[in-house]
């Protein structure tokens, strides 16, 4: 893995963390609704995965975090505007943080019903295959969502058609308050690849190089017409399911906090000599300033007209 790539993953992961922490604060202040599902603990892997793709490979995501968007350079101001009901958002007040979209950056949105994006990814794969655009369609989703029937229908048909799709399951061990072990009959979601005759790969979500490798291999496979891959990222959920979740169902929170992949990456970046402690501090300050600016710009944007409720239904 190239050093500059690693540094960039660190920078974007840090920015994501700062952005989401600020988002949660804004939610507490009532500036935006508390509907963010923080991605803390998963940003490094999300951003590493995106780093292994081409910029125009379309991405569908689930609800956990904004790493995908930050990785692709979606405007933080716009995401905040989506939530605060101000002009200049990505979805004009229709979808809040759940449906951030920016097709110019390959961000293709989210299904509010879990697993709903899987079926869409199949059609997107059909289209890029037919149009021979060379793109790979990538869908991120959670362990919980992988228990929906759409997972089965989608992976099967994508495999039959050898579609250029990459399925990335971020297994963070929880679906709201339910641990994977109580909802899912296998330990590794990747084992399910076997039922579709496709590769199933497990990677450590704290290891950006491993994530990039796996995604790069899967994307190459997809691009060369060999069909989809299922990648399982072993992840940790550092925060609650949603911003204000008390997590009173959870005993592992403190334990998990010790293994924050962002901390691991920070230490690595420093130990590798890519950045000094001081440079990391400076970077943090820069991230905070960047987020601050986004917040201010968002707040300077006019509120959406209530009449926007009637727009965007049909062409």
């Amino acid at each position: 893995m190239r050093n500059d790539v690693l540094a960039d993953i660190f920078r974007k992961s840090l920015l994501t963390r700062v952005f989401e922490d600020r988002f949660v604060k804004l939610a507490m202040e009532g500036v935006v609704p508390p509907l963010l599902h923080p991605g803390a603990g998963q940003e490094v892997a999300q951003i590493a995965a995106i780093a292994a793709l081409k910029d125009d490979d379309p991405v569908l995501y689930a609800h956990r975090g904004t790493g995908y968007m930050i990785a692709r350079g979606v405007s933080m101001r716009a995401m905040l505007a989506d939530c605060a009901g101000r002009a200049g958002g990505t979805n004009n007040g229709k979808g809040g943080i759940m449906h951030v979209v920016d097709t110019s950056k390959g961000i293709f949105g989210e299904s509010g019903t879990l697993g709903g994006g899987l079926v869409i990814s199949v059609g997107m794969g059909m289209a890029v295959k037919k149009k021979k655009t060379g793109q790979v369609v990538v869908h991120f989703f959670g362990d919980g969502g992988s228990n929906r029937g759409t997972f089965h229908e989608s992976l099967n048909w994508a495999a039959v058609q050898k579609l250029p799709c990459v399925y990335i399951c971020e297994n963070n061990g929880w679906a709201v308050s339910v641990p994977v072990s109580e909802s899912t009959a296998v330990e590794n979601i990747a084992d399910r690849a076997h039922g579709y005759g496709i590769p199933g790969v497990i990677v450590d979500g704290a290891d950006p190089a491993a994530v990039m490798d796996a995604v790069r291999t899967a994307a190459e496979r997809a691009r060369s017409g060999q069909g989809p891959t299922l990648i399982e990222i072993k992840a940790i959920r550092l925060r609650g399911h949603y911003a204000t979740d008390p997590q009173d169902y959870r005993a592992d929170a403190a334990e998990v906090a010790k293994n924050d992949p962002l901390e691991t990456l920070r230490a690595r970046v420093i130990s590798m000599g890519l950045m000094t402690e001081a440079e990391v501090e400076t970077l943090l300050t820069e991230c905070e300033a960047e987020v601050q600016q986004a917040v201010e710009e968002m707040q300077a944007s006019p509120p959406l007209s209530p009449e926007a409720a009637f727009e965007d239904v049909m062409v």
Partner: protein
Amino acid sequence: MRTITYAKALNEALDESLQADEDVIIYGCDVGRWGGIFKITGGLQTKYGADRVFDSPISENVLVGAGVGAAVMGLRPVVELQFADFLITAGDEVFFKAGMWRFMHGGAFKVPMVLRLPSGETGAGPEHSACPEAYVMHSPGLLCCVPSTPADAKSLLKQAIQSDNPVMFFEHRRLYQQRGEIDDDAPLIPFGKAAIRREGRHVTIVAWQMMLNRALKAAETLAEEGIEVEIIDPRTLAPFDFDTILTSVKKTGACLVVEEGYRRLGVGAEIGARLFEEALPYLDRPFRRLAIPDVPISSIPALVNRIIPTVDQIVATVREMAA
């Protein structure tokens, strides 16, 4: 008489049903250990054990379908979907399996299951915000409850669990914290019996759940102007107590339906059509509906408030009708 919240009323109904009948089981995402994302099943797993109150995978089709299967074999499953919208996600299981498994097998089975459906706007966009009662009311084979008060919530949920038919039970999230009186000795409210929430003689309003609250508020303002509205809360949509509406409209000559569902082919459409069928000689003034104007539900309060009927709209509409 005690005063409790709607949420507590539901919890008590579940608790007492678990207590009364060993065949009652409860499952759904997060309903067990955590007591549900809206905390309606709180404490029940601890009290009745994880073989009667338990968590499920995120698999809405099997959640509902298993309810039918368990019911067919003699249990009384009470299944929670986290958002009422998801009954669409489990469409086959709701409409064809729960609604028709008995029918298509010529009455060989009973399907005593309850699907709990928290409804109403959340700010989380169009897949998490609807009041999709109309789909249910259009479909044969399903009972449908829409309780508006803590007392009704408790009574109808107990009744639903005791029913040998599948019941779609809509709980409005915005009512969970609302308090109301409850009489522990009152008999259970029968299905298909509307409540007259306010008597009046100028205009009949039909409304339930959050829209009932708004209608009641509007009625106060209107009363100050000398306009007396009669407000009818259907309590169950299937069976539907049309007679109470008919009697009222024969008296008032005018009807407004206020609902939080989509307008086109909504509950109001059925009420309007039936009045036109059965009460034409009594209809003095045009029918009116306030409902979501056939656009999906946004995620921003300002936009959402633009499409869900408000107290002001109710007041203005009734004023026009009474003019």
